[in-house]
């Protein structure tokens, strides 16, 4: 049986200033799904990512992440850390995401919380540093880096703990071809992956399911045929 990672039923999220994040969303994420969330700016992609990662609670509706009901406060706060270990979220804007004084601290932020053995920390760290090619910037503060480097560090700081459920928000916005290819390789790994993007080319290369959002509502769920539907894409303003 395939496991259910995220279960959403009529989920809405309204921000305190009245802005609609998402409205009446019902969808499931299954294990090893490769989902692309597409939609124009302000269509609720980021809010949906935050909800799927159990970072915010719906203002109405039911949401279960890894089987835990986020509205059940007691059970949720008991188990939330266990879930967090399995989830890796990378924000759209790395400036919002990186908060440690150096790149090294950034990468070690999660491993140090997990009480891993020193050997494991060391080997994971070295592998990620090599994979991402960040040896020469380890002691720099993240906010001094270029946009592309920041994006890389943000992804690296999540990949270091090998989450099984990966949520990426606009991973290819503002990056050069090299990092773009790198991200694409990452998306082909054997994990459950949700990517919010309006990069149609990227979607074609990795996604198996496509969810189209408009003004906070899901307008259609389907396969790759949706990104071939130029009329749809044009109407909601992606291309």
């Amino acid at each position, binding site marked *: 049986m395939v496991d259910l990672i995220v279960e959403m039923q009529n989920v809405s999220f309204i921000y*305190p*200033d*009245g802005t609609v994040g998402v409205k009446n969303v019902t969808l499931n994420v299954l294990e090893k799904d490769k989902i692309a969330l597409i939609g124009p700016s302000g269509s609720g992609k980021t809010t949906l990512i*935050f909800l799927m*990662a159990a*970072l*915010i*609670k719906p203002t109405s509706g039911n949401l279960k992440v890894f089987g835990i009901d986020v509205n059940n406060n007691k059970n949720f*706060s008991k188990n*939330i*850390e266990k879930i*967090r*270990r399995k*989830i890796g*979220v990378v*924000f759209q*804007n790395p*400036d*919002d*995401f*990186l*908060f440690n004084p150096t790149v090294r601290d950034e990468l070690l*932020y*999660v491993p140090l*919380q*997990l*009480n891993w053995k020193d050997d494991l920390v060391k080997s994971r760290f070295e592998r990620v540093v090599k994979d991402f090619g960040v040896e020469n910037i380890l002691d720099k503060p993240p906010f001094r880096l270029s946009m592309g480097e920041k994006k890389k560090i943000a992804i690296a*700081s*999540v990949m270091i*703990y090998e989450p099984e459920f990966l949520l990426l928000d606009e991973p290819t916005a503002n990056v050069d071809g090299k990092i773009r290819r790198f991200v694409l390789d990452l998306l082909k790994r054997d994990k459950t992956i949700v990517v919010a993007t309006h990069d149609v080319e990227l979607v074609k290369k990795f996604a198996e399911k496509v969810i189209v959002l408009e003004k906070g509502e899901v307008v259609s769920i389907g396969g790759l045929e949706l990104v071939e539907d130029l009329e749809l894409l044009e109407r909601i303003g992606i291309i």
Partner: protein
Amino acid sequence: MYELTEKILKESVKYFQNFFIHEYYKKSFLHFVDVRIKFLTALIFVMLAVTTFNFEKVLFLLFSILAIAKAAGIDIKNLIRRSYLFPAFSFIVLIPTNLSYAAIFSLRVFTAIIILQLLVITTPFNEICAALRYFKFPRSLVESMWISYRYILSLFFDLLTTLIARESRRVSKIGYLDVWKKGGKAVGTFFLKSIEKSEKVELAILARGKAVWKKDWKIKSNDLVFLAIVAFVVFWWWLI
């Protein structure tokens, strides 16, 4: 940590209502009264409310103000909901001294808060800034108030993402002291960003100029009507 993020979302709801309050309310008679007159009236009414311990005077003032609000079409229930908490608290605190004193004291406080709320509800912030400038309030303070007010919303979302970013990579339980420390660091990061933003805003203001509050200060007929009502209330208060 999670509580912190949740609470800011909850807490902020009531704050943001104030920012959009002018959109909730249909424009009432009071919205059109000259802001300078409204401001001074609020000050005079507050003085009338607090300087007396005469039950009749306070009650008369309170009811007159509610009557003005009602006649102008303000939602009285909402007005009271926004004002009752503190007076109720002071009443309870003062019960051991003397019941009638406690009642009158809290009623005065309640009346004063209602007056201020009424001013706030019916006056957009840029008009308040304009009035403060008219009364020769220091320009730099009014400017900083204006900028602050403009940026509270945007900074709120900055703080929210800062907290969420920390939460997204918190994979172990932490105690109170840790919440304070880690949360404090998150707030620190947020302040760093705010300082950076202030530098950018400084450049933006250099590029596009400062806000000016120029108003056409002209007394209109509704101002005179309002003044007459105020004069009547003050006179009667004095008469009682």
